[in-house]
């Protein structure tokens, strides 16, 4: 009923890797907005909870020819054959037809982690620990986003709370569609370099749609045919060649030598 009244959108983002300086403001803003708790005492890089993780990847060459690129990786919001959706036994993962965003319903999640195994982008995180904030810091939590319990999988949902708020605002103003300026995910808002462009990829007037069609735009693991809605762009050929590489493994190997 609702979708019949509102325009269907296909939200996505384009991340300019030549502008990203790896400051981490996007990852921080994401955690603050979505009530992602601080690291548990025993959390490690493998058991951490980071809806948006910035990977540093080098070109592998020796100093001083060595160059690095920072790649923010969150849920890529696959549009076709969404692997996490098809494996979830609980219907806890679904694609919202109104936004194209892959949604995660923690309350339904059993914690089987099939979706994590299926995700080719390693963009899903299992909540290994009880969510805890230092005493008193609960007062800083965002009331628009519920807290998830240990034992469920979490991931980026393009700040669903902000989309709902934008929808409520549009409804209050008697508008059918939301104002694009009212729905901007926290990471986009926080980026000091304006490296992330967000918008409706189906709207040719949106900056995101235009940027996604630029010459040097690419998507990670496009060959899998999952139609991710997160695009990247770089003028550097070696960066574009990373599109089909496992960037997480690559950097870990470099660290190990």
């Amino acid at each position, binding site marked *: 009923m609702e979708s019949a009244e509102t325009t269907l959108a296909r939200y996505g983002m384009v991340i300019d890797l030549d502008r990203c300086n790896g400051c981490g403001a996007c990852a921080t803003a994401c955690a603050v907005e979505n009530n992602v708790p601080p690291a548990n005492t025993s959390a490690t890089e493998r058991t951490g909870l980071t809806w948006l993780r910035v990977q540093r990847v080098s070109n592998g060459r020796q100093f001083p020819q060595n160059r690095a690129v920072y790649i923010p990786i969150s849920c890529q919001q696959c549009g076709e054959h969404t692997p996490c959706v098809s494996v979830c036994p*609980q219907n806890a993962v679904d694609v919202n037809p109104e936004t194209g965003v892959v949604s995660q319903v923690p309350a339904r999640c059993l914690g089987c982690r099939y979706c994590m195994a299926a995700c080719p982008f390693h963009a899903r995180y299992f909540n290994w620990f009880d969510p805890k904030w230092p005493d008193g810091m609960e007062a800083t939590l965002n009331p628009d986003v519920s807290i998830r319990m240990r034992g469920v999988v979490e991931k980026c949902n393009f700040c669903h709370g902000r989309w709902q708020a934008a929808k409520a605002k549009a409804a209050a103003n008697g508008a059918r569609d939301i104002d694009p300026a009212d729905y901007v995910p926290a990471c986009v808002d926080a980026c000091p370099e304006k490296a992330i462009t967000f918008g409706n990829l189906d709207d040719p007037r949106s900056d995101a749609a235009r940027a996604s069609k630029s010459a040097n735009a690419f998507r990670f693991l496009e060959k899998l045919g999952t139609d991710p809605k997160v695009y990247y762009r770089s003028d550097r050929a070696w960066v574009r060649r990373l599109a089909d590489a496992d960037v997480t493994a690559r950097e870990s190997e470099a660290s190990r030598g």
Partner: protein
Amino acid sequence: MRFEVTRRDVMRFAGGAAIGAALSPMPWTLTDDLAIWTQNWRWIPRPSKGERSTATTACALCAAACPLEANCVGKSPIALRAAGGAQPLCSLGLTGHHLPWHPARITRPQRIERGAARPASVSIEAVVRETARAMAAARSGSGSVVVLDSRPDRSGSWAWQRLLASIEGAVVVATPGTEGSSLDALDALSSDATRLTTLDLAGARTILSFGAPVAEGWGRLSECCPGDVTLVQVEPMRSRSAELSDHWLPARPGTEGVLALGIANTLISASLVPSSVTESIADFAAYTDIVARFPLARVAAITGLAADDIALTARELAANGPTVVVAGEQPGGGPLRRSDRVAILGLNALLGSAGRIVDRAELLSPRAGEPLAPVARLESLPGRSVALLVIDASAGDVAFPWHVVDRKLASSALVVALSPYLAGTARHADFVVPTAPFLEAIHEIPSSRTEAAPALSISAPLLPAREGAIDPVAFVRMLASAGQIDLGGDWSSTESLARERVARIHAAAIGSVAQPSESASLPVASLASADELWDALAKGGRWTGDRAAANPERRVELAAGLGVDLTREVGAAQASDRTLKLVPRAARETTLTAVVSPVLSKLYRESQLRRSPGSATLSPRTAAALGLRNVRAARILTAGGSAHVSLSLDEGVMAGVVELTVAPDLIALGDAARADHRMAIDLLTPAADGSWSSIDAELVEG
């Protein structure tokens, strides 16, 4: 017909029921219910509910004083963002509203006994008594009193200067590594030592940065130099600024000054210095003689750079002016050596464009005509001379090796820190006085040394101060009272002094206020009262005063300040084949405060974006040359001690260099229980001039 229930019927019924139930939605509903039930334990935090509102103020976490808008529920901020289209906040600013609840927060004065496992709470009266006793001893000649100020030019800074005015030899010094402190080398270039100087950064088209974190917000350069600016970054490591620069010159650590003289050599020998510029340099002939000793081939051999690259850089600087040359404080590494800074900053005079040395207009003090203790440089203090050290970290903290200060302390010196947290520099104190953190009290953010015009922002509190927090200015009053020192006036708090300062600015009707919500600045003369000016500042506005008038008589002396034979220092033989250059590395925001939000553990512990504290990185080639087989764990040995570090290899690190990560430790990240009280930065032994940007170290397995 007789209806008879057999055992077989019962079994069939039970089996059928089980199969039917399994095929019905019931198990799934039960599983769902179970999943929902297990997510609603009573200990799961619940976000607060209440009326939503927004409030604006200024971020007090660094000198940039970004205007920010806080989304509040009830009266509590739940999110911070840049106000009025200003530059987005950094990670530190985005999480600033977490800091009042940081686990390292203290609300009672603490005594840290040497060797004791835990600090003990004491009364504020006991702290005042002990501090006043040490002050009285210093007045009778047992040593000097020094206040280490993490943010000079605040009203609180003025209060300390006012208190110390009555104590012979007492001084206020800026905390080592404070933003803009590298520019104190400009004093050596100015023929008029009585005037404050800075660099004119406005309108630059090219920036030559020696280690300054330009792309990370250092020195408000982004505001001074809008549009396309060519950035040339000189740094031995591939920092974020180096990553985003147009040209990166990876000079060997410690050779920055030589590179500057090499560039000067090219500029002079290629006649790229206009005659009008040479006339403004008092000792141009002597400077030319020194520079002549640094031909390109020699500079290239010392710095490890290609001679062509150096020559090309020099020509680009001259051709693509106006050019600014800055020697900033490397995050975690503090300023470069003083002689290097003099050589680097001297290039500004030689290029004669935007980066010219200008007078820095002083910010009006809260009260006029009162006696004040002088401001000094830490390295100018004699060793083991300080009997009482007060660390005022109430407005922020800077990561620096404790050796820098420790060698100035007398054996029985008393160290008192003012800080909201039992973390950072305060952990070296005997007593820690709790102050109110950002968002709980008035904080002033005056202009930093990098700004030519005076400026002031006020960070107004959005939360009520927690019981027990002591106002630094009130603490000064308590000390004066205990020491029977008459300070005059009726000021008793930071707010009262700050309001006096704002009233003076209003009365002088100078400058204007930029407000986050308005596109045009508001002239102070147009404001009816000082209260109006105060309100504009408290809502995130920034007052900027007038620049000092041009000083046509100013001449600079480029040769005199060099003083040290750079060549001899650079050419000093290494202690052994295993000696490496240890270079501290940090993200800018992590060296500004004693603590960071525990949420930043996302960057430090739960991802590979930032290296964790206690880690070091070196190139695989260096590891192979040292014969390191187990590259996971190693021990770093320096003149300052030794420490175990977790080691990683990275092709992006210069050969012969080991990068030591200076990052928030576990206490700073909110995990006090597992904290290692030895900070990695304390491994760095400072040079005689107080710099610690690179030192010799050895690396051994184990």
